């Protein structure tokens, strides 16, 4: 199994979720994160005090899928999350050694 970790623009969350579900992914976990990358925050001014915004709001999705499903899922995310503008985000794939469904105790692919 693989863990797909995607960092995308917040307003794309619903599109990406739908695309993943369309690609057969049955579960995922989302968290609100702040990203630093090529996309730079603007310079903000409050009442004359200026500062640089370093972090931008992003959304991180994590889904564990069986090995064979990785390609399709990554494609789905790419298609749904891309706007072509800087800051669209990244997808990382990591190996998962075991998965357990807490409710039933099922393990491995059956747990996804």
């Amino acid at each position: 199994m693989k863990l797909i970790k995607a960092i995308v623009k917040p307003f794309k969350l619903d599109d990406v979720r739908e695309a993943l579900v369309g690609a057969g992914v049955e579960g995922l976990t989302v968290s609100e994160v702040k990203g630093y990358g090529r996309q730079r925050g603007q310079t903000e001014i409050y009442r004359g005090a200026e500062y640089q915004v370093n972090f931008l709001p992003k959304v991180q999705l994590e889904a564990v899928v069986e090995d064979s499903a990785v390609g399709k899922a990554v494609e789905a995310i790419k298609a749904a999350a891309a706007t072509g503008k800087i800051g669209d985000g990244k997808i990382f794939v990591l190996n998962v050694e075991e998965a357990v469904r807490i409710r039933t105790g099922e393990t491995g692919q059956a747990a996804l």
Partner: protein
Amino acid sequence: MTFSKLKRLGVLAGAAALIAGPALAQTAAPAAPKIDTGDTAWMLTSSVLVLMMTIPGLALFYAGMVRKKNILATLAQSFSATALITVLWMVIGYSIAFTDGGAGNAWIGGVKYLLLGPMGLNATSSLAPTIPESVYMFFQMTFAIITPALIAGALADRMKFSAFLAFMGAWLLLVYCPIAHWVWGGGWLGKAGALDFAGGTVVHLNAGTAGLVAALMLGKRKGFGTENMAPHNLAYSVIGASLLWVGWFGFNAGSAVTSNVQAGMAAVATQIATAGASLAWMVAEWVVHKKPSVLGMISGAVAGLVAITPASGFVNPGDALLIGIAAGFVCYFSAVHMKKMIGYDDALDAWGVHGVGGALGAILTGVFASNAINAASKGWLHDGNVGQMMLQFEDVAATFVYCAVVTFIILTVIKYTIGLRVSEEVEVEGLDLNLHGEVVQA
């Protein structure tokens, strides 16, 4: 001795005093004073409104602009100042500001009213002859509370709480009380004829000047100019600014000390100037920064409220609009551009809004004050009284210089005894947790 204040009340209250005066004199020993229930109702309401300006008004206005880690500490400043000043005002503040100082009366009031001693149930003050003195003392107390509390905007996010309390107390007694006495309590400025209806110099220029001095002495917040110091929750600031606006009718219309035409006109001038200033600041931002911020709209409103304060009972509605528009543009410039040019860190713009706005209002009062609106005032434009302009400049200069010097002295003493500023670690981790042991979780 209390002539200036009587003048400030305008012709109607003056007349009332003329009538009430002898009546009072005639009544025998324990007699009840000639209290007007309508005036008293309005002055009780006004006092409550001005108290609401500080808590929760000003507390929220400031707390919404700081970072999350300092929200409670900012609220604590307004709240604790309210408590502390209430007690000090009762112990001695009212006495030295608003009672007869005898030989030194030009400079400071007397000490006969220590702990409000002679203020019995039926006492009245000659400064407000149609209401109980208890109500007048309470009304003035609410002014004494908000003035020092305003300074907190300049020293946000970095002052020790113990130092803050010491500063509030000392400043009240050594700066606010004398200046209030000079202008309203029978002192030299009021006698000379300086016009300050509700506190353009006594309250706002005064607090703003103290803020400027404090900001310079405390130094910049750590991370100023590099770290994100964006307001954590401007919704609080909008609530705060709204309550300041709403409560300010107690401030300005209440300063008529009657429930009459003078109060009505002061209310109207206040509303119009505030609206004009809010729109002006909005327009300035829209043009310069392409986006009109909510922070700008509410800052503009406060600037208008400040600038109309000294003028409110003296000017007609049209001139109030002009004063408001001027205040919006000028305070926008001072809080956004001038501050940046000079480079000090007046965190929440006590000087940029209250100092500059108060001085501007005091001077424009000299320009627009109209005999048709208040029998006690003659300004330059309508009544050709150029001399009033000089008096207004004198008032501004005297307040600025006295306040700046004494504030500097007070803060220097605190610096070398208690210390002014929290440690860098405390500042980074936040005042809430370190000074008060609490945090907001939202």
